[in-house]
């Protein structure tokens, strides 16, 4: 019988008693020779296989033991790591071997657990030390540290007991091993978290052990303190914090702290606030001593003053004050250091640092003056007045904003390309559906119209890559930045290409093949292709979630373009933008209209409306002249009305939609009496102006409350309050008298007419700028292009953004956040949105939880103040109403004011005063939490503007607040 057969027999018959004698009798060579056979059997017996509803192995418990023992006796390190029989590392199993065999790899295998995220529980620290003493293992310090942590507790069944006596069993533990805990990452900070005694968590732990055994002299106390400080510097927040806590609990004496000064100072470079605070507290304790190393402290103090933790900065300043009093020789250095605290936009810290500098600093010290000057523009007036002697007059001049954006004329830099040859068209079409540029959706149809007479059959192969991309896109290869409009454009392009293929069947044969390939991938599509071939249409059946509204303008436009292409009409599109982001040069628009006039053609309704909405309305003299001289009839009257600020509408009004759009582009808030009789007059005006009524309120709502009582889940309905903004969008509905009711309604439904039908005739562009969908989907990828349909008057879509993204204090998700950011980007570029809805949106963004949104909104306010197109009073009033119902925490607003809006320029400071005055007027008489900081900022702005409170009602309110204990000091100067 061979060895393999003998072994197989032992395994199969589960003769575990025979295994050890069998293995013992083998030579090392025989064990190595046997290992492939064991490996094969191991795979067979230990591999999990599905059996019924569960997974199990072939091996019985006895067979598993036999295999594991065999692995231990016959495998090398590589093999054993693969099997990883960690449970063998218990006394019970190991002792069966160690008297006659100890594998060479045992030490390496045990040490390999030192950096794994688990430890074999069968091997405890006590047995590890025993194995070490017997020479079987040479443990690495990291493993010792990790194994020592749980050894403080004794475990009996489910119960655990704090038993420090266990650590006294081996002298090496306290002499050497205990110090490894300070050098390697362990779980010492939560060693008792999951340990229970009599149903309660074990309270005592390592902290108690160190306190007790350093107290009775068993552990060298000074070394313990030193190691604790060094450990507090090198681990993660929780572990470092635990060591810092240990240091505090050890209550070091003054003498000990003085001996540990270098280690304490080293902690100032720690990234953890708690550690720094504890080091500072210890320093404070000995700052008065002659042996305190003030120079060493000052070397490191520069790291503390820029700390974002106010308490750390305040404690450091306190130390600096103490040291100034103690050693006059250090004053100039301390003053220079103290300037570091001026970086904080926190009045109390600045004032404290300024006092210290004023007291100890030399106004003739050029270095000190130069350093203070660097903070000049960010100083609060209190700190500024304290440091007056150090600031020369020119530093007091407020910084001038260096904004780049000039709302100037359309320039060559912002001009969009005009595609004039086939090569350019090929490259444009290849990327048109990628949403690389918002104007690609306008440029592609415009170019197809322009070049339609040049496009021949021979050009079809060059367009195939674009067709392939469009087909891929159509058959669900969506990318993260592609929206519904890209899908619509792809469908439009595919329909045009199919039409081309039909015109040039020979040259279009490979393109037809391409279509066929994509359709043949699915049985349904294959049949469709077989039935319809190149007469299949992508565009006509195009559907999106919000097809009826948001995307209809583009759909109508592209439908018109497709018709023109098929009919060979090469009149240019009126609405193609000429400049970034979507403006049309008014002179170019007049020239385009002239071409229509010359050919006696009527512009496509949607095309004309978009063009009028995109027309640049500044510096229009040239265009007015051109329109005056060249245009005729209603087109002339519309253009003159649009371009000339003084011009009023003059009838007759046959192109009603164009007149209405021109009026909304020119002055959205003005109701022109001449246009009152247009059919749109029957609709609520808010539908077109976007100025929907809204409420800022706290409302009650119910929710389901879950309670876990006695092992059972109880649900109940509870009521709570929430702050919301509610928009009344009823104006978006068509007026009742236009909708049939009763039997008429039934018949009209039978006839295929929908209840919420568009007004007749024709639908206005703004009728589409709304949504019936409850939830957002991919609107954030399209909103930029939708807003740029009407850049002169974005307010209706702003109402959409407010309703979907900003009505609640928190965002529903990333989609809503992205939508709002895209909207803000457009507002920042176009500088429009000056109605109340625009102001509501900016106000909501200013108190948004998202920092990007806040920064954008702040930038729009700064820009609006410069360009005088934002009403700070209205904005302040909305903010006041929002804050009165605690829509957002005051701190968010005050942080914004300090970081983004104050000290920009005198112009902005005055606008800020108006904003804050208006905000405070809206606040309730009882002071709200966080009001103090807001009042500090208000007083600071008043000081900067050398202004006083003028509004009597506000004065009274401030007087009332002044009586309040916490606010009196702040308002001392203001009222």
């Amino acid at each position, binding site marked *: 019988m061979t060895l393999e057969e003998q072994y197989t027999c032992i395994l199969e018959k589960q003769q575990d008693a025979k295994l050890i004698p069998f293995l013992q009798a083998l030579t090392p060579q025989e064990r190595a020779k046997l290992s492939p056979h064991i490996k094969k059997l191991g795979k067979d017996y230990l591999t999990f296989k599905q059996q019924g509803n569960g997974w199990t192995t072939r091996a019985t418990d006895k067979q598993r033991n036999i295999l594991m023992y065999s692995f231990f006796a016959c495998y090398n390190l590589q093999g054993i790591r693969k099997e990883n029989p960690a449970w063998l590392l218990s006394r019970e199993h190991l002792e069966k071997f160690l008297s006659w065999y100890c594998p060479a790899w045992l030490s390496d295998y045990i040490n390999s657990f030192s950096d794994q995220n688990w430890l074999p529980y069968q091997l405890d620290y006590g047995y590890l030390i025993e194995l070490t003493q017997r020479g079987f293992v040479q443990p690495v310090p990291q493993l010792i540290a990790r194994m020592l942590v749980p050894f403080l507790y004794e475990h009996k069944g489910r119960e655990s007991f704090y038993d420090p006596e266990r650590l006294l069993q081996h002298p090496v533990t306290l002499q050497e091993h205990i110090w490894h805990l300070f050098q390697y990452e362990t779980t010492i900070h939560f060693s008792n978290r999951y340990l229970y005694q009599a149903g309660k968590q074990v309270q005592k732990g390592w902290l108690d052990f160190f306190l007790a055994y350093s107290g009775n002299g068993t552990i060298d106390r000074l070394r313990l303190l030193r190691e604790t400080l060094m450990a507090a510097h090198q681990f993660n927040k929780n572990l470092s914090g635990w060591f810092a806590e240990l240091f505090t609990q050890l209550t070091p004496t003054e003498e000990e702290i003085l001996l540990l000064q270098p280690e304490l100072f080293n902690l100032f470079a720690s990234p953890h606030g708690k550690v720094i605070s504890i080091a500072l507290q210890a320093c404070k304790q000995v700052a008065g001593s002659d042996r305190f190393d003030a120079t060493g402290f000052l070397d490191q103090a520069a790291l503390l003053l*820029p700390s974002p933790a106010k308490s750390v900065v305040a404690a450091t300043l306190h130390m600096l004050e103490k040291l100034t009093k103690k050693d006059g020789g250090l004053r100039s250095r301390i003053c220079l250091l103290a300037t570091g605290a001026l970086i904080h936009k926190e009045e109390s810290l600045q004032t404290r640092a300024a006092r210290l500098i004023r007291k100890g600093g030399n106004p003739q010290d050029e270095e000190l003056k130069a350093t203070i000057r660097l903070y000049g523009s960010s100083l609060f007036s209190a700190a500024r007045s304290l440091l007056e002697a150090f600031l020369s007059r020119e530093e007091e001049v407020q*910084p001038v904003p260096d904004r780049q954006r000039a709302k100037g004329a359309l320039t060559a830099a912002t001009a969009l390309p005009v595609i004039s040859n086939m090569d350019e068209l*090929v*490259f444009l079409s*290849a*990327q048109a559906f*990628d949403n690389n540029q918002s104007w690609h959706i306008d440029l592609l149809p415009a170019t197809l119209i322009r070049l339609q007479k040049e496009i021949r059959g021979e050009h079809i192969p060059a367009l195939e*890559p674009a067709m392939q991309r469009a087909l891929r896109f159509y058959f669900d290869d969506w990318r993260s930045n592609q929206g519904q409009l890209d899908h619509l454009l792809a469908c439009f392009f595919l329909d045009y290409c199919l039409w081309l293929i039909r015109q040039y069947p020979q040259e279009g044969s490979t393109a037809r093949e391409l279509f066929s390939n994509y359709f043949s991938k699915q049985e349904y599509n294959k049949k469709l292709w077989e039935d319809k071939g190149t007469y299949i249409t992508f565009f006509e059946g195009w559907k999106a979630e919000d097809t009826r509204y948001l995307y209809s303008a583009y759909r109508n436009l592209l439908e018109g373009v497709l018709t023109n292409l098929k009919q060979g009409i090469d009149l240019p599109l009126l609405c193609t933008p000429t400049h970034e982001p979507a403006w049309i040069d008014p002179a170019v628009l007049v020239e385009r209209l002239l071409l229509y006039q010359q050919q006696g053609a009527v512009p496509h309704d949607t095309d004309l409306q978009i063009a009028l909405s995109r027309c640049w309305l500044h510096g229009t003299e040239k265009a007015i002249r051109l329109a005056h001289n060249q245009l005729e009839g209603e087109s002339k009257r519309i253009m003159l009305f649009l371009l000339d600020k003084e011009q009023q509408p003059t009838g007759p009004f046959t192109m009603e939609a164009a007149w209405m759009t021109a009026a909304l582009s020119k002055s959205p808030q003005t109701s022109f009496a001449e246009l009152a009789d247009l059919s749109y007059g029957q609709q609520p005006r808010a539908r077109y102006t976007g100025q929907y009524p809204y409420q800022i309120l706290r409302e009650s709502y119910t929710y389901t409350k879950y309670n876990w009582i006695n092992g059972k889940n109880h649900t109940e309905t509870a009521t709570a309050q929430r702050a919301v903004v509610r928009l009344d969008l009823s104006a978006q509905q068509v007026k009742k008298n236009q909708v049939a009711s009763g039997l008429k309604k039934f018949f009209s439904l039978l006839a295929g007419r929908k209840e919420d039908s568009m007004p007749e005739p024709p639908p206005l562009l703004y009728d589409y700028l709304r949504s019936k969908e409850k939830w957002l989907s991919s609107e954030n990828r399209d909103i930029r292009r939708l807003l740029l349909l009407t850049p002169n008057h974005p307010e209706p879509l702003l109402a959409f953004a407010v309703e979907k993204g900003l009505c609640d204090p928190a965002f529903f998700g990333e989609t809503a956040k992205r939508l709002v950011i895209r909207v803000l980007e457009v507002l920042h570029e176009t500088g429009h949105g000056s109605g109340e809805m625009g102001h509501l949106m900016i106000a909501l963004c200013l108190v948004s939880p998202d920092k990007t949104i806040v920064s954008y909104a702040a930038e729009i306010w700064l820009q609006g103040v410069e360009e005088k197109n934002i009403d700070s009073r209205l904005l302040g009033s909305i903010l006041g109403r929002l804050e009165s119902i605690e829509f957002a925490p005051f701190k968010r607003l005050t942080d914004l004011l300090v970081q983004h809006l104050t000290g920009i320029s005198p112009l902005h400071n005055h606008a800020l005063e108006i904003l804050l005055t208006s905000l405070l007027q809206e606040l309730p008489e009882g002071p709200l939490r966080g009001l103090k900081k807001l009042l500090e900022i208000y007083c600071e702005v008043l000081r900067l503007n050398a202004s006083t409170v003028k509004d009597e009602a506000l004065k009274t309110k401030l007087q009332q607040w002044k009586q309040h204990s916490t606010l009196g000091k702040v308002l001392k100067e203001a009222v």
Partner: protein
Amino acid sequence: MSDTITYSYASPSALQATAKGDELFLAHYSEVEKKQSPCFFWGRLTDPYTTARCLITLSQVVQSNFNLSPFQLALLKDPIVTAGNEKIRFEGFSHCAGAYARVDVLPGGHEGEFVASGTTNVDFNQPMIAALSRIRKSESVLLAVGKKEVSVQSSAGKVIERKVPLPVKWIKGLTTVQLFLAQTEEVHSFNRIQALQLFQTLPGGKPKTDYYMMVRGGRPQFSPVKSGAAICIGGVHRLKLLEPLLAHADHLKVFAHPAMQSTTWQLYFGNLRFSLSLSRDSWRGFSGEGAALEDLLEDIPQSWVDLVDKYSYANGAFNPTLFAVEEGINLQQLAGITSRLSAMGLLGYDVDENSFFYRQLPYKLNRILSLNPRLKDAEKLLEENKINIIQQTESRMEARVEGSGVTHMVVIEEHQGRCTCTWYARHQGERGLCKHVLAVKKKTGY
């Protein structure tokens, strides 16, 4: 070629306490070492406290990960160090290869002996990094890149081996980042206070939108709002890696790529420099940018590589003209040699000195050249003869290249290639050339 690399260290790196003070021993390994150099540098650091903090920050960069790829700490790559020409440079990449950090210990930053010059991997283990934070200001620290005493090394006995997957991203990133650095220009210089003011405006969390760095009212700040002369930074939260060093720095310089494809933030501490270069966005590593592809199109004779290796010394500025004159190589032939050598991992770039410096990556050259799938695909297109040249004039080249299912149009005008493929449509050439343009260029040398 194996897809794993085995770092084989004679012993682990460690900060050891000796009677004369601490000794920072860095174990090294290179798979292309020609001879076993036991030690590259041995000497004192003049500012060990700041050097230690810079090395900790470098280790934090190496441990960081800013994209969504699975992060395996155990498989971290070790930084590389180049010693020579009186400088010691430590280089490393974040796990995602989107953040590149370098610590330069300049002449005056050390007092010691460069026993040998060269580039090697150094073991950066966690206990050693943790121990670095213990170094105090007044302390004396000895730095040893490799054991000076051969006997010590041999007596150490046990070799530390760590097998990690081949650091493809690192190697590609190291070859690509130099080309971005070579194009960057200094745009701002701030003193410590301004730098601290700037970083105070760093947004919290991980903003998904681009941020712009601008100076307003004399104060630098970050803002999500685009403005004229601002520097664009995608994944701005990556800059937080620099925060622990700011309070130590004398000043900060900001360098930007002309097309804002990368930014470099360099901190100066006397004779020490720490630079952090960021890719265009947090989800875009330098490794995937393809900037080196064009430079790898032309084969460099092995004899030149050998010559560069022979005449250049680690950290020495590379002067192509001098190289050509000394070796009698036609200057025209040398056009673009710096970028080609850099793409092969033979040169690094120092933005402060505005020059390339020699350092051969401690990886086999054929590894480096085998890592560019787009280049391989282009070669496949050439092999399969899928390129049809339509027009070739001095100013314009037009070709048709067979793609999957369609034929792509490639036009190269004024060295700018355009293609109708998806890659080009999506990135518009910002992330290197597509395989079709590469194939046409390789075929025609256009």
